């Protein structure tokens, strides 16, 4: 069950770990300066508005939560927002991580940045109704952001404190947000991650008094589905007849059973009782794919599973040569094939997730660095220069989490790969709590961990490498657990938000060079969104050819895109 805790490294990208510190930056957006008012179809690809499907059918989601449903849908409560954002509540703009941060207008028809990027004006879509029949207006948008100011616990992405938001005003169908700094990097959060809530609900009664803890049992949103009804064992959603995207959603009913464990969820997926899977299936070929030709899987990578060598000089891994040796000695393809059963692709030392972020990937730099594939000779000589050999091996331990069986298997392979170069690796399986404490405080030689990412590689790189995300040993770091500190890299990361597209790619490539030179962290495999889908009765799933949204059901707000694109194929 622990598995479910880390299935979605990249889920909603990242956030506030970076924002916690003042200087976050990061451009979520590519074609940002353009006023985007593109038609709906652009990002939904082949299943877009050009083809229409008849309404009907039911989809059952198998996404293990490990608990029964509390039947709360408050979008400001991170323990339950996976069941409301995308289903009931919608963002202003959807940003697709899998398509180079392509934007799709949702509740905002379009937007325009101010010249200095310190302000942005959204034009709100007209004709949208809340599912209780009230009209949706620009005032609701302003209200939502003002609420976060009044109740900081609802400001999950620290917009008012970290991003420098100073005011949000509505006038006619326009909403203007003003910031005290260039705010483009935060677009991904305030436009894509925040679900807009209705003023007439959240502005009165108990909800107004405690919007942060209010249960919101019958959520009123603009989204494609409504909760109808919720029991501890199952949430049933029915299509919102007033939904603003004409003709959608095609699917009329969503069943979301509360799976307590992977076993039954995967069993239901295998026999077709559930059609939309979002967790790891061991031995997937035999257990799932072979059961039916309609059973399909596609798991796009968005982040890395990474070996964190402690960079501080008090650990042997503080020596560059030792880190280099480990990076040379790894055969990542073997780790991926055996440890992850071929279900995750191998990563590379630049830290760029391929093919998702190919645009940023400097393959020639990787090739010339020598880290592109296993090189035991170089690894051994690096170890020798650090004073170790097979006869005088270096004892290291690596911390990992109990219950992450694939990580255990991967580390077992890594242990075997490091033995011939004179590293005696001990795998330290820890309870989640103990593991976290050690990871955050830097109490490890090596740690195995999957960081969350964002719409571009910048997000994960910044978490790994930005020195302000770190902390002295013994203190909790927010990321950068390996304690890497390189002012040049900090500078690069600081320049990124102000740069244009080409400039940002160039900056990322320079950071990649630092990854290859300093080996601050060692990416091993690419972490994927587990996704299984059944095509017997339902079409329109996101696929490799048409990656219109992150496919696993726990991705918010991507889940809303999938829900409005899938359709019943029953005659």
């Amino acid at each position, binding site marked *: 069950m622990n598995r479910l805790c880390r299935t979605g490294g990249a889920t909603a990208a990242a956030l506030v770990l970076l924002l916690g510190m003042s200087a976050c930056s990061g451009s979520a957006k590519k074609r940002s300066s353009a006023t985007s008012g593109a038609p709906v179809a652009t990002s939904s690809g082949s299943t877009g508005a050009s083809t229409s499907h008849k309404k009907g059918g039911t989809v059952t989601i198998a996404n293990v939560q490990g608990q029964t449903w509390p039947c709360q849908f408050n979008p400001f409560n991170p323990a339950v927002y996976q069941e409301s954002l995308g289903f009931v509540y919608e963002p202003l703009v959807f940003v697709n991580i899998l398509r180079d941060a392509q934007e799709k207008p949702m509740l905002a028809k379009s937007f325009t940045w101010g010249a200095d990027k310190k302000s942005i004006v959204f034009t709100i879509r007209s004709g949208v109704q809340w599912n209780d029949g009230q009209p949706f207006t620009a005032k609701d948008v302003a209200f939502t952001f003002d609420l976060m100011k009044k109740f900081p616990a609802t400001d999950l992405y620290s917009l008012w404190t970290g991003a420098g938001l100073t005011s949000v005003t509505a006038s006619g169908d326009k909403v203007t947000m003003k910031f005290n700094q260039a705010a483009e990097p935060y677009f991904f959060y305030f436009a894509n991650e925040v679900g807009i809530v209705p003023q007439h609900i959240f502005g009165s009664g108990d909800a107004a008094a405690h919007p942060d803890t209010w249960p919101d049992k019958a959520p009123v949103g603009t989204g494609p589905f409504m909760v109808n009804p919720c029991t501890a064992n199952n949430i049933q959603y029915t299509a919102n007849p007033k939904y603003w995207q004409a003709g959608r959603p095609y699917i009329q009913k969503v069943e979301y059973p509360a799976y307590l464990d992977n076993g039954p969820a995967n069993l239901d997926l295998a026999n077709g009782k559930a059609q939309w899977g979002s967790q790891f299936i061991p031995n997937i070929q035999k257990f799932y794919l072979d059961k039916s030709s309609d059973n399909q899987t596609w798991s796009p990578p968005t982040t890395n599973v990474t070996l964190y060598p402690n960079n501080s000089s008090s650990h042997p891994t503080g020596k560059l040569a030792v880190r280099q040796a480990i990076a040379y000695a790894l055969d990542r393809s073997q780790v991926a094939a055996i440890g992850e059963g071929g279900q995750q692709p191998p990563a590379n030392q630049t830290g760029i997730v391929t093919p998702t972020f190919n645009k940023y990937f400097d393959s020639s730099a990787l090739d010339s660095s020598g880290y592109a594939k296993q090189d035991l000779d170089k690894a051994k000589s690096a170890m020798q220069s650090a004073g170790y050999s097979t006869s005088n091996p270096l004892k290291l331990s690596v911390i990992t989490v109990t219950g992450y069986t694939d990580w*255990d298997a991967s580390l077992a392979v890594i242990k075997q790969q490091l033995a011939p170069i004179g590293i005696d690796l001990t795998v330290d399986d820890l*309870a989640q709590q103990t593991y976290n404490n050690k990871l955050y405080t830097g109490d490890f030689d090596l740690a195995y961990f999957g960081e969350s990412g964002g719409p571009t590689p910048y997000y994960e790189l910044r978490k790994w490498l930005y020195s302000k995300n770190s902390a002295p040993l013994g203190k909790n770091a927010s990321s950068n657990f390996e304690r890497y500190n390189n002012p040049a890299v900090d500078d690069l990361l600081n320049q990124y938000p102000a740069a244009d597209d080409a400039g940002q790619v160039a900056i990322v490539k320079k950071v990649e060079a630092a990854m290859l030179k300093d080996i601050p962290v060692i990416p091993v495999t690419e972490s994927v969104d587990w996704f299984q889908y059944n095509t017997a009765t339902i079409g329109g799933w996101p696929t490799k050819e048409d990656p219109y949204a992150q496919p696993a059901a726990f991705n918010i707000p991507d889940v809303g895109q999938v829900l409005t694109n899938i359709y019943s194929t029953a005659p």
Partner: protein
Amino acid sequence: MTALLLDSGTAGAKPSAPTRRRGGGLLRAVLSSKKAMVGLVLFLIFAIFAIAPGWFTSVDDPNKLAFPPSLPPSADHWLGTTALGQDIWAQLVYGTRQSLVIALVAGWFATVLSVIVGVSAAYLGGAADDVLSSITNIFLVLPTFPLIIVLATYAGKGTLSVVLIVLIVTGWSYGANQMRAQALSLRNRDFLESARVRGERRSYIIVVEVLPTMISLIVANFLGAAVYSVLTAAGLQFLGLGDPNSISWGTMLYWSQNQQALQTGSPLWSIAPGLCVALLGASFALINYAFDEISNPALRPVRRRRAKRLHA
């Protein structure tokens, strides 16, 4: 938990009128009971596995992912391999040691603790008795398994010593209650009275006079505590609260459940270690039961003559 409660409850109820018995007689009686023999043989088999696992498998590191995953049973891999590529038979053989150590060590210390607390409470009497029996009763009533889960989770990595300590702390109270009851019933017996009149010291009386009389209850207690420890430890490890790197039956069960062995076509991975836990538990329980019959002749099974007389 209920079962154990009742098991030991009856074991305590019966020998309420103990007789002085020599150890040798006891042993002979055990050897003549079929149930006890089955239990003993099972125990011996496991003991041999535990002492020399290398005799039964050629694999030396059963946790190493040395083979292709999910093989069916074959001549090379008697029980097949796990989904991670380990030999199930080898894990089973090597896992015996930890389970047996847990049973014996936790059973032993829990019993020692119950003897100390129970006998002192009975013998000291007065305020000391009040305090000791209150503590015993509190431990008796505390919801043990939830407490164990909380303890094991927060004690970090569930190493063997953590599991052992948890089992001992939670496993002694039934025994202590019985020990106290029996020691109380002994207090005014003649042979103790005469020892007192002889002017023997208290400690002498307890060790030399009282304890030997209680030997059958103590042995029964030890066996009960051993069963409890085996089952509880396996349950804990199954929940993932043990050390997942250790080789034991409970840890095997944890991994097999984690990899959904039942559903993905390697049920032996789950069934075999569970069966071993069951057999080890059964071996202690059988010995215990036979033991009961010996110390309480009324319960012996084949007693046709007397039964006839009753019916007549």
